């Protein structure tokens, strides 16, 4: 098949792309949130620590005093293994801690409000929390700033771990999404495939409209397909009608021409004239045969479209056909031998009679005088019934036998024998319409031809 890339693949790739985008997006979001959460946790603990220290601020004999509570530092140690620094100062005067620790500016100065900042200290990035408190010392209020700082390795490690976890989950999500996309694409395209299969499964002459439940999106396609088939069927029928009409119209005048030629033949003395008239009669015979066969062929195409399903005994069929051709056989002293067993099939009696007649006609037509043609009905297995027509004639020749069923194809052994090359075509079309097949072969002892109509019994 030609054309652009498969819809299924395109759909899958599209859905996978969306999934990949969502995966990356969600990973980025989780990573960001994880970092934020870790940072907030650290901020909270730092704030709690600074506040706990500030709460111990008091004045004793005009001096600001404080005591670092054990919990203020142990809670910092509990969240991560990070380095801790602190500083307590009144204005620029250090009370305790690390003198050179940078302090976030508290503006406007507000009691008890915690201010955060990030900075560098002793070769590492630190997060700082500062809280200001006023203490009455020596009668005057003194504002004391408590700053607690902690390095950020711990939160980075936590955020990194969570980010990694999120990445793993995203990849897993992506893989699942791609699998589901492929499944979804296949499922949504299944009705299309089913229609395509239903159409391609049909026989060459099956132009009935498609009747199956299809999704709404495919309804226009179905309608268009059905309309196309209907048009095709109509034009086929028209051309067949035309052939039938044409054959009729040709046959009647031909019969008149033949009768006139016969009369002329009898009245003419000159040998060359006679010869000419005989050739004329032959040509007329050929034409008439062709017209008849064309008519039959059209009938087959017409009736096969809506095949009758009557019960037919093949033995009866064989006997009738043999009766019908008995006069022709008698002219060549050919004996038609019937060897039948009862075998019932379902089908169109007219078409089957036509098919068998063509095959039997061949056997008689191509055999020498004073020979035997055997018409045998067999049921070798439960699923198969056969009508074999065996003659003692020249056989089907050395060429490829399958070609003999082609339209207007005649063999090499036909000199002087009237025919149109449609007989086996008709026979094959009929047996195909009945679900069977035509077998062309040699007679039992290598002489003659054996043509078999094979029926498959359900």
């Amino acid at each position: 098949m030609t054309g652009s890339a498969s819809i299924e693949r395109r759909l899958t790739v599209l859905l996978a792309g969306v999934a990949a985008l969502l995966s990356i997006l969600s990973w980025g979001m989780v990573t960001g949130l994880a970092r934020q959460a870790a940072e907030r946790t650290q901020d909270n603990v730092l704030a709690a620590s600074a506040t706990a220290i500030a709460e111990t601020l008091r004045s004793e004999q005009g001096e600001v005093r404080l005591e670092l509570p054990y919990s203020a530092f142990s809670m910092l140690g509990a969240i991560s293994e990070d380095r801790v620094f602190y500083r307590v100062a009144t204005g620029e005067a250090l009370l305790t801690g690390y003198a050179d620790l940078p302090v976030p500016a508290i503006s406007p100065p507000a009691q008890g409000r915690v201010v955060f900042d990030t900075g560098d200290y002793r070769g590492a990035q630190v997060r700082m929390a500062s809280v200001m408190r006023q203490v009455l010392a020596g009668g005057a209020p003194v504002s004391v700033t408590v700053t607690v700082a902690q390095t950020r390795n711990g939160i980075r490690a936590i955020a990194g771990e969570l980010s990694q976890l999120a990445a793993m989950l995203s990849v897993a999500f992506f893989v699942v999404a791609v699998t589901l996309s492929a499944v979804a694409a296949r499922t949504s395209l299944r009705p299309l495939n089913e229609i395509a299969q239903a159409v391609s499964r049909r026989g060459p002459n099956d132009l009935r409209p498609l009747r199956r439940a299809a999704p709404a999106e495919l309804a226009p396609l179905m309608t268009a397909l059905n309309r196309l088939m209907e048009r095709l069927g109509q034009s086929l029928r028209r051309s067949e009608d035309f052939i039938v009409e044409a054959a009729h119209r040709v046959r009647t005048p031909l019969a008149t021409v033949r009768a006139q030629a016969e009369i002329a033949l009898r009245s003419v003395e000159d040998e060359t004239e006679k010869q000419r008239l005989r050739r004329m009669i032959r040509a007329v015979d050929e034409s008439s045969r062709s017209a008849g066969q064309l008519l039959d062929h059209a009938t087959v195409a017409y009736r096969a479209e809506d095949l009758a399903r009557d019960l037919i005994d093949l033995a009866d069929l064989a006997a009738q056909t043999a009766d019908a051709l008995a006069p022709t056989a008698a002219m060549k002293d050919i004996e038609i031998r019937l060897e039948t067993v009862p075998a019932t099939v379902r089908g169109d009696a007219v078409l089957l009679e036509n098919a068998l007649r063509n095959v039997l006609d061949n056997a008689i037509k191509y055999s020498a005088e004073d020979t035997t043609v055997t018409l045998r009905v067999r049921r070798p297995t439960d699923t198969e019934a056969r009508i074999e027509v065996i003659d003692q004639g020249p056989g089907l020749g050395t060429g490829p036998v399958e070609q003999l069923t082609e339209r207007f194809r005649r063999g090499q052994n036909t000199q002087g024998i009237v025919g149109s090359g449609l007989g086996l075509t008709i026979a094959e079309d009929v047996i195909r319409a009945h679900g069977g097949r035509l077998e062309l072969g040699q007679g039992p002892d290598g002489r003659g031809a054996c043509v078999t109509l094979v029926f498959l019994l359900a």
Partner: protein
Amino acid sequence: MRHTGFSFGLNAVVIWLCGLCLWATAAVALEIEDHRHYPGTGDRVLRIVSTADLEVFEPYLLYFHAAHPALSIDYTVVSSAELHRAIRDGRAFDLALSSAMDLQFQLANDGFAQSYRSSATEALPDWARWRDLIFAFTTEPAVVVISTERFEGLPLPATRQELITVLRDNPDWFQGAVGTYDVRNSGLGYLFATQEARSTDAYWRLSEVMGRLDPQLYCCSRQMIDDVAEGRLALAYNVLGSYAAERLAQDSGGRMRILRMQDFTNVMLRTAIIPAGAVEVEAAGQMIDALLLVGLRQEPDIWPLPPLRATAEGESAGFGPIRMGPALMVYLDPLNRRAFLEEWENALEQR
């Protein structure tokens, strides 16, 4: 008795106020307690500064030296406060081993240690390591050592409450015969005292009772143990269990006994750091690996110092070792230290 310079009057606070940078400039001569040099065949020297006496630590040095004969080892014994000061001053040492884990922790926290990572440090349990900077290689409990002679006829106390009762009921027996650390001078004594004060209220009651008995104050475990062994002291409180056990193993004579308090026991971690200015970092790392290997040993004891264990041997209540973390720095804060020492002096010096 030595004075190690940690006299925390207002002066000290002022020095602190002037900034930590002053530590570097105010370099005073190091007060060395002991020193030994182990010459190696090569010319690399591993300089170790440590608080562990050579009596207990020499086997470790010999063990390491046997494995690395090319290396010369220079071993200097100082007090824990001196060690802390030396590293802050940036003195040239490659490895610092100290029993004062709070001071060691502060060094690491303040950036005076460099990180080290090996399969041996990875094998350490979480509580025995902090950020690839500090590594514990022993767990050593604080114990009470008594003179069997001078305790004759008295019930052996198993908890602080019982100890308080014994001391209170027999003031004549114990007058001037109770020894404990002078927490003003001893880093380890200060660590034990602060951790104990935080963990059990019995500490201050016991201190007051001891204060009434004219207690003898010491800088170091060894002298206290010696005095108990010789009968000069009836009881030494908060002695390093490992030294006591060592001493007991050497000359027992049945004159000394080790008691472990059942209500609460401080368990100290002896720790190693590689100072930021270390030169022989690789050798220092190898020494740490060797110490950790010995510390995590499973085989019976041939080593003077106890192994690393989450719960000390024979311990019923199972007290974990002192937690390594920033909380250790709380009592190192000059203001806190001043407040604690004031309270301690009030309790112990009631003359």
